[in-house]
């Protein structure tokens, strides 16, 4: 395992030696504050710098409320940072086909068919009606749902709904895929199958992914690099030196996997126990 100290590999240095593997997403000293309904200002991100290179799978982990989802929303362009710079493939992010967002709650349009749900994300692209339909069909085929194209989301299981959402995000052929705890709403068995599915799709298409998760195991299984966040800051970055193709059984019993998992878990536990905001603050839960 390789440890990158915070700030040592800033995005600025990476930009300079940008060769064929130029970063797709760069956050440079990003700061974001929100006003709560009662008027109090909350700092969601205080100083976040990170980058995601092309065809790299980066997982963002950390305790609840540390700002992981805010990073995704800034990367998509849904919200603007108060300070610092963000770029997707060199330019400021704006919501649209350059990014593909997969939400935890699927967020499918319930009155539209599966096919129409995928096509919805393609409407801003300069495609003809037929091209759009064809594109949607091919990505539904990729996630194994070509036979459910005319179904409505209400007729699908949770795993199938998330496949549709994944097809919708992939179909615009985005620079980067932003995934916000996409498997958190699925039962344990479906979650593992979807992780395998994602590993499989990643091997075929090698998309650039920024993946937010609570699960250390999921991060280690899927990612090339893990970014550990705590209360609005990037704390540490870990490279996951486990070769691909990976699979659930072999990778999870790999000695490196187990060592990294124990180490990461210990760090997250320490983070939570030392956070005065946390409900577990000061509890003696040492393992």
């Amino acid at each position, binding site marked *: 395992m390789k440890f990158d100290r915070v700030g040592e590999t800033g995005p600025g240095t990476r930009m300079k030696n940008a060769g064929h593997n130029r970063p797709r997403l760069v956050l440079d000293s990003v700061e974001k504050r929100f006003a709560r309904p009662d008027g109090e200002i909350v700092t969601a991100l205080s100083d976040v710098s990170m980058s995601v290179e092309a065809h790299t799978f980066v997982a963002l982990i950390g305790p609840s409320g540390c700002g992981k989802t805010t990073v995704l929303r800034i990367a998509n362009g849904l919200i603007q940072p108060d300070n610092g710079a963000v770029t997707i493939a060199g330019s400021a992010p704006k919501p649209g086909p350059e990014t593909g967002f997969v939400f935890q709650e699927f*967020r499918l349009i319930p009155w539209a068919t599966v096919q129409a749900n995928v096509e919805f994300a393609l409407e801003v692209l300069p495609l003809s009606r037929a091209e759009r339909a064809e594109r949607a069909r091919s990505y539904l085929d990729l996630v194994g749902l070509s036979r459910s194209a005319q179904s409505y989301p209400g007729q699908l299981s949770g795993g199938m709904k998330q496949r549709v959402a994944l097809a919708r995000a992939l179909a615009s052929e985005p620079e980067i895929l932003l995934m916000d705890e996409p498997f958190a709403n699925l039962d344990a068995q479906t979650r593992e199958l979807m992780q395998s599915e994602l590993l499989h799709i990643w091997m075929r298409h090698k998309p650039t992914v920024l993946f937010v998760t609570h699960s250390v195991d999921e991060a280690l299984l899927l990612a090339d690099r893990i970014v550990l966040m705590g209360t609005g800051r990037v704390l540490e970055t870990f490279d996951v030196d486990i070769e691909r193709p990976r699979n659930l059984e072999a990778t999870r019993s790999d000695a490196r996997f187990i060592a990294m998992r124990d180490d990461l878990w210990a760090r997250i536990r320490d983070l939570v126990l030392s956070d005065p905001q946390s409900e577990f603050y000061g509890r003696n839960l040492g393992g």
Partner: protein
Amino acid sequence: MPRVTPRQRKNTAMADNRLPSAAPGALTVAAARTGFLALLVLLWWVASVNVARNIIPSPLATLEAAGRLLHAGDLQQAVLDSISVYLSGYGVAILVAIPLGVVMGAFNLLGKTLEIYVYALSATPRVAFIPLIIVLLGLGAEAKVFIVFLGAVMPILINTYAGVRQADPELVEMARSVGAGRLRIFTRIVLPGAVPYVIVGLRLGATIGLINTVVAELYTAVRGLGGLLAVYGNTFRMAEYFVVVLSLATIGVIVTEGLRYAEQRLGRWRT
């Protein structure tokens, strides 16, 4: 033991989610409803025999009265009058309420400004306006149509407004994330999401509109089914009176069932 196919098992599981007992088939429901109708007619007949016959007419006497009214053409004329008042008032209410509700929902300040007045007006018994309406519009068709309009417009407006306001924020954010502009979000996410609310408003408006049709016909120039109601009620021609009441009930059922059918057609995605 009968084999359970996967399809059947799925249906049973779905029914179990909704009700503790299995959902009956359509034919069973139709048979049960017909049986209940027979029971009602029987009770009606028993009541007509035991209460004085000139207060509650027997089913047969009512049927004969219906025949007489149809033969003379009175009933058809009254139904035609009432329905034209009803549909005009209800139609105008739809044409005003849905666009206004959509615009109020789309523009926050406009909605917030107007909603308090809309709620106040809808809480006022609309019958209170009838003397004013008669003074302004007279006793003719305009006054009647306006009374129906006034009753039907509020539930449609309030429900349309609520439906547009209660758009799913998660779906709206999803649409934003794929680059949809404000107009596309409004037409593709917000408006379709409001349809179930609009239909509830249409159903409530249809019911209130029918009530107001009769009220209008009783209070203004005595015409239509409401007019017949007044004439036969005041002259104790109870068999004819019953025919009118049943005609009104039939119109109510046809309208609300029609809207229910429309709701089902529009909501096919709800499984």
